[in-house]
Every structure is written in C-alpha cells, then in structure tokens.
C-alpha cells in the first residue's frame, strides 16, 4: 500500500462506504475460533467453490455474541444480511445451499434482534418464529401453524417460515419477526396466526396489539466496527469504517483543542477507576520533561472480562488510532501496546495493524505531512494480573518484576523510564476516534450526569446469552441481564450480579434496577471495573464466590507489601474454613479487621480493593456466612452438592503453606 496523504484521507471521508449485498462474514476471534470458526470458514470456502458461486467468504471480528459462536453473517441479494449462530462446519454447506442459492433461511440458527420497526414497507419474505416462554417450547408447532396458514392462502411458496435461534426478545411467549422489515410480534397465540398472515403478511398492516415496540438498549460506539470489518485489513477500516478520520480531525486541531473535545465528551477511563481522560492527558502534557510516552493498557486481567480482547481482535486499527490521537494530544512520539501474552490473536492482529499503518505512512515521521511523528510497539504481559496497575505495568515494560510503586509520583509526572506517561485502557482509546469524528457533545449525549457515553460489559456466568453488551451509561443492570442477555440460564432466579471483577462486589437482586454509573456502583459497594458482569443464580454460594475472587487476588498479589500479601492469604484461610463448615463466629470479625488493614494500608489498588468481594457479600449476604458457620460441615457439603460443583469443600490445599 502506498503511503497515504491527507488528501487521500479527506477523499475517503466524503466517499460513501461501498454497499455489498453478497458476502459471507465469518467472525474469527478467539472465542469464535474456540467454537470452531476456523473450520466453519474453511467449510464455507469449499462449499461456495463447490457451488461455483462468486460470493466472497470474509473474515471479520466478533460482534460480541459469544454464546452463539461461531457466528456468521450472510448476505444475498433480496434479503437483508442475516446473522447465523452456532454455525459449526457442517452447517456451512446448508447455508450455502439454502441461503445463497435459493434465498431460504435455515432453521434454528438465525439471530435477528428486534429492531423496533413499526412499518411493513416491503413485502414480507420470511417469518421467523421462536418461543421465548418458559416451559415446553412451542416453536415447531407455531412454525407448522404458519406454514399451514400460508399454504391455505397459497403463499407457502413465496414466504418461508423459519425457526430462529434468537430474536432479541426474551420471556415474551411466542415471538414472530417479519422480514425484511423486522417487525416483531410477541406473545403470539394460536388464534393470532391467521390474523398475522392475513393482515400483516398479505395486508402489510402492523398489528399494534402484538407489536414489540421496545428497542434494543444497546448503542455501539466502542464496538462500532466489531464484527463488520476485517480486522486484518487496513483498506476495510479506511473505506468501510471511517478509519483514521478521527485522527485527521485531531491533526487539524491543536493538541489543546483535542483535549478540550475530550473534556466536552466527559469520557472517563474505562479500565476501572474512571479518571477523566482529558485530565490525565492534560497532566501528562503539562510536564516539561520530554520525551513523553503513551501506553495502551491491554492487560485485561479481570476473570470474566473479554471486551478488550474482543476489540483488539476485531478492530485493532481503531485502538491504534485512539493511541495516536492520545500521542498527539499529550505530545508523545512513542506509544506502547501492553497486551497479555494469553491473547495471542490480539497480539497478532495489533502487530499486523502496526505494520500496515507504518506502510501506509500513518505511523512514523511526519505523519501525513502534518509534522506529527509517532510510532508504537507491542510489549507482552507474562501472566501477572497486577500489571494492570499503572506503576506495575510500567515496571513490567521496563523489564522488571511487576510490583507497583508508591504514587505520587504519578505516571503522568514520572512514568515509563521516568518520562511523563499517559496510560489508557483499550476501551477508552477505542472511544477516542469516534469522539473526535462526531464531537464531544455527541458522545456526552449518552449516559448520565456524571458518567457519559457508553460502556461495554462482558456479561457471563449463569446468563442465557453470555456476550459483550454495549449500552449507554445509566442503563439498569436488570435491563442488561434480562432485556439484552435473555435472563438467567435455565430460568432460575437471579441472586446477584457481580461487577468489577476481583476488585468489585456483588449487587443483589433488590438493587438490580440501579442505573449503571461509576458512582452508583460504588455506593452499592462494588465498582464499574473494566466491565465484567457475572450473573449468579440462587444456587451459587456467596461465600464460595467471595472465596473465588479472593483466591484470585491472593494468587495475583505481587507480594511486595505486607497488608496485601499476608492479609489476602489469611482471609482466604478464614473463608476456606467457613466454606468447609468449620468457621467460628469470631471469624467474621477477624475478616472485617483484615479487610480494613488491607483497604487502608495496601500500597496499590489490588490490595486496597481485594477485600471488596468479601465486604460486599458480607453486606448483602451475611446470613449465608452465618449459615455456614452454624450449619457446620454437613451444611457445607449440602451447599456444594446443590451447586453441582466439584467438591469445593476440599481443603484449600495450602500446598505452599503449612497449615498450622
């Protein structure tokens, strides 16, 4: 690729994205690959070749619907693009034969989120049916009923009825979606079948009493390109995703103006602490010493969080673009991606993005002739959660043990190799190009008073659709879990949602209507963290959950300071005793005392927040602790059996430590 010029970029900006109506896009991120997407990709290629079709089979990143992996998007003339989930290799030839060759959808794989459409402008071509209710599924019965009704009216040849995999509506009885418009009816009963066919399919009238009017609360800013572009193609990013237009917008202004735009946007660090991004940049920029550095923190360590991996794998250029804008704003010519070594695919794609950007003249000296010089490198983590902490991350890049150091001095004053350094999380940086392109005010239009914009959550655990969700700040936890992710697995009752990873806390059912924002979560004893959201049902033991998170922190403590090193370990011993039914009443007081010492006297955030899971479970579920203590070993065994886990009652093997 020959080096780009500012004019080239300007031309790209005014050129509309090419519309393609014929493609197969296979979502190839680590999650998809784990589910067999590579095989699916190969199967599509050979099936398309065997059918002598010219349909391009393309690689894209992930939409975030991990539960449905492998996910494939298929477009053929005459139909809107359709998402298929659970497309193992053996499904690929079926899709080629049905969808590409005869315009028919295949059963049980289509994902068609309710669009909120309320008009039937074009003739209906397909009906999607899914029973979202509890109990015996009646999907097949309704499919049969619709087909029969269509047959009766002689329409069966023109209109297909397919069973869907997911229609973005949950617990609303039988749901029917009419394509291509996307009009969705819920709680459809048998008598409605004829009505729908007659009035809506034939008469193109919308039935208001059945119409699903709610729209998906999701807003995709960070994930704007994920799943729709090829993460390994710079042209795709440039032509189809307004690639590097945010950078162009930034370079047209002064660094101060760029920072001002960020200030207007209200963007706060998405790594957890929520420090205003503009302020961090300003604090770095005002340092007199040079050179300065900017680091992308891709050491996503919270267990159960994978938004950073997904963004790096699915849209690496937008993170790089954000990093470059940050570099321009703070006056840094050097950037680093610090990425977990456990994310080889992300590393590979960022590596490729860097090479492409360098080749296109987007990295290097005098970028686009603007006088701005910038380049970036990758540094790998090596399996240490604490390296997500800024000073530990810096130590790690410097080739040392990832032990945090006292702040002040803050990295903005003395960071990497003593240079003023701004460290931003992947998600934060992915927001930046969009803000520069569409304006801070646009971004600030989403969210709440204190917490602007959107946030990506990785919703996992006992949830139906474990996936990435991007919603405006202020959306309630309940809406995220139930409206977007389909509710609790096996329709059990929800007990709590854990947010913020090992530094976070549990939020019980009664508080799930809280709008998500940094402050509100804090008031509930949890934190936003990087956006992990773990759904727990009534069979999950909160003592066990606290122990799980605490064990994580104990394993990941750097060991430098006594309160964290010993405090976490000793709390774990106590929790272990309790969870085996061998705790004593005074153990609770001891836990609280150690929690206080850790919170107040630990050197870094890891130690200061490690007690949160314990404190928040004590706050909302102290009766569970009491039950373990009073119920003794037999109760503990009963709980373990109920959870179906593999004997959590076994002693916590302090293999490394002598149990006194």
């Amino acid at each position, binding site marked *: 690729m020959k080096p780009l010029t500012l004019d080239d970029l300007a031309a790209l900006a005014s050129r509309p994205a090419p519309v393609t109506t014929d493609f197969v896009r296979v979502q190839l991120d680590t999650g998809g690959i784990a589910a067999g997407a590579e095989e699916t990709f190969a199967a599509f290629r050979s099936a398309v070749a065997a059918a002598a079709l010219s349909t391009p089979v393309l690689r894209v990143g992930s939409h975030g619907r991990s539960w449905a992996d492998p996910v494939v998007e298929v477009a053929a003339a005459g139909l809107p693009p359709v998402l298929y989930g659970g497309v193992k290799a053996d499904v690929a030839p079926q899709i080629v034969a049905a969808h590409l060759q005869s315009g028919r959808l295949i059963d049980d794989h289509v994902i068609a989120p309710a669009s909120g459409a309320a008009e039937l402008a074009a003739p209906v071509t397909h009906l999607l049916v899914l029973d979202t209710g509890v109990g015996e599924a009646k999907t097949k019965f309704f499919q049969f009923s619709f087909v029969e009704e269509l047959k009766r009216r002689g329409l069966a040849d023109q209109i297909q009825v397919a069973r869907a995999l997911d229609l973005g509506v949950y617990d609303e009885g039988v749901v029917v979606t009419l394509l291509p418009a996307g009009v969705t009816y819920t709680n459809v009963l048998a008598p409605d079948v004829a009505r729908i066919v007659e009035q809506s399919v034939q008469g193109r009238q919308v039935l208001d009493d059945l119409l699903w009017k709610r729209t998906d609360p999701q807003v995709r800013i960070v994930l704007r390109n994920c799943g729709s572009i090829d993460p390994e193609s710079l042209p795709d990013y440039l032509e189809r995703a307004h690639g590097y237009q945010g950078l162009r917008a930034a370079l047209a202004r002064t660094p101060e103006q760029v920072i001002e735009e960020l200030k207007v946007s209200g963007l706060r660090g998405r790594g957890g602490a929520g420090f205003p991004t503009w302020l961090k940049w300003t604090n770095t920029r005002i340092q007199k010493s040079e050179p300065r550095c900017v680091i992308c923190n891709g050491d996503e360590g919270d267990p159960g969080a994978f938004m950073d991996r997904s963004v790096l794998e699915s849209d690496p250029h937008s993170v790089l673009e954000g990093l470059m804008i940050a570099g321009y704003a703070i006056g840094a010519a050097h950037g680093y991606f610090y990425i977990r070594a456990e994310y080889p695919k992300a590393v590979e794609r960022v590596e490729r993005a860097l090479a492409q950007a360098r080749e296109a003249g987007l990295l290097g000296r005098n970028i686009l002739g603007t006088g701005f010089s910038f380049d970036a490198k990758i540094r790998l983590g090596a399996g240490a959660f604490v390296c997500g902490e800024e000073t530990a991350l810096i130590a790690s890049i410097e*080739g040392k*043990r990832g032990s945090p150091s006292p702040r002040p001095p803050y990295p903005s004053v003395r960071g990497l*190799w003593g240079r003023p350094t701004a460290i931003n999380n992947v998600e934060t940086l992915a927001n930046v190009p969009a803000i520069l392109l569409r304006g801070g005010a646009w971004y600030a239009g989403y969210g709440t008073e204190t917490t602007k914009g959107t946030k990506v959550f990785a919703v996992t655990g006992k949830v139906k659709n474990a996936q990435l969700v991007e919603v405006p700040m202020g959306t309630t936890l309940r809406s995220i879990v139930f409206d977007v992710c389909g509710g609790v697995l096996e329709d059990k009752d929800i007990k709590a949602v854990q947010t913020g990873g090992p530094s976070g806390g549990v939020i019980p059912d009664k508080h799930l209507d809280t709008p998500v924002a940094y402050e509100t979560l804090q008031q509930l004893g949890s934190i936003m963290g990087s956006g992990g959201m773990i759904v727990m049902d009534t069979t999950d033991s909160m003592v066990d959950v606290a122990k799980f998170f605490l064990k994580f922190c104990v394993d990941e403590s750097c060991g430098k300071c006594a309160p964290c090193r010993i405090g976490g370990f000793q709390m774990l011993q106590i929790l272990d005793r309790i969870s085996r039914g061998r705790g004593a009443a005074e153990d609770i007081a001891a836990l609280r005392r150690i929690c206080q010492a850790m919170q107040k006297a630990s050197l870094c955030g890891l130690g200061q927040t490690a007690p949160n899971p314990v404190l928040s479970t004590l706050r909302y579920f102290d009766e569970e602790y009491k039950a373990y203590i009073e119920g003794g070993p037999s109760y503990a065994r009963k709980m373990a059996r109920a959870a179906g886990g593999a004997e959590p009652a076994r002693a916590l093997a302090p293999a490394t430590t002598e149990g006194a």
Partner: protein
Amino acid sequence: MNPSAHASGAGADPANESWRNDEGALLTMLEEVERKHGYIPQQVGDEVSRLLELKLERIKRAQAKLETGIRRDVQRHVARWSGEEGNLIMILHAIQNQYGYVPREVAMELSRELGVRLARIYEVITFYHYFKLQPPGKHNVTVCNGTACYLKGAAGLLAELRTQLGVGEGQTTPDREFHVDVVRCIGCCGMSPAVVCDGKTHGRVKPADIAGFLAAARAASPEAKP
C-alpha cells in the same frame, strides 16, 4: 576378551548386559565380580573404563554442542531486541516459546549476553507465571479458571484431568506426556468452561470430553508444540 563373558565365567549374570547403559547396574556388576573374585580383573576394569571414557567423550561433545547452540540462540534473541529498552521480558518470551521453559543454562547465558544479573532474571521469571523453569510436558492442557468458567464447572474439569492423568494444577505426568495448568482467564467467557489443549481452545467443555482431548493429543504428532 569380552568382560561380560568373563563376568559370566566368574558367575555374574551372563545375559544381563544392562550395565552397559545403566550406571547403577554397572556398579552392581562390579560389586558382584569383586565379591566372586575378591578383586576386579584387569580386563573387566579396562573394558569398563573404556566404556566410561567413551561415554564421557560423548557427554562432553553433546554438552559443547548444546552450549554453542544455546549461545547462538541467545545471541539471536538478544540481537533481535538489542537497543530496545526493557527488552528482558520480550527476550524471555522468545526463549520460553523456543524451549517451552527457561532452562538454567539459557538464563545464565542470557545474563552474560545481556549484561543483566542472574538475580534480576530469576526475579522476573519467577514473578510472571507465563515463564516456567521446568520443562513442560509434551502436551499441555490448560484449564481456564476465569469467573465464568469457574461458575460453570472448571473445577469438575480439573477433577476429571486428575482422574485421567493423576496430576493436578501445575503438575506434569511422570512420563512428561501431559502438563496440566490453570490460567486466570483466556477471555472466552462466552464459551465457558474452556480448555486449551496444545494451543487449541475448546469451549463448553464437559468432563466427559476430556478423555477425547487427551486421546487426540496422544494421537497427534509427538512433536506437538508446547
């Protein structure tokens, strides 16, 4: 004359020539001969020392080859990262990828080449769980224990691995065929619980699937990348 013939004539185990390859057996043979004769006959002694010298020679050659090999590898890695600040961890990654662990000799050589104290290198290696000081198994099975996987039964998978292989977290089977490890999260929470077997990630794993993975790994090439 063949000392084993001599030994057999002297009443030691005639057929068993395992002492030619096994030092323990060699000592037993010599003791046996000495017990029978009251001394070790010249010929036996000569043959044994000839064998030992040969062995020593071979060991030395192998060692020298290893050392040059190590030096060349380390120099290559250092050259790739020379001039880069804070390159130690990236070089250790390269070494870890090459050998599957960081052998002591390599760490020593790296210390010399890079001018970084061995103390610092070990501080770093032992801090980061990604780096290992022990050779890995031929096949590596890694169970993800992120929250999602934990809630959905990672412990059951580990228990199954223990049943199948007899080893648990961080351990290698005695025949060095399998190494079992636990990682904190591989970011496949949507597919939980997840297991990585020889670099391939499997999602929604049930304990019953484990036997199949192990069999497939065994059947795969013995050169399986660690």
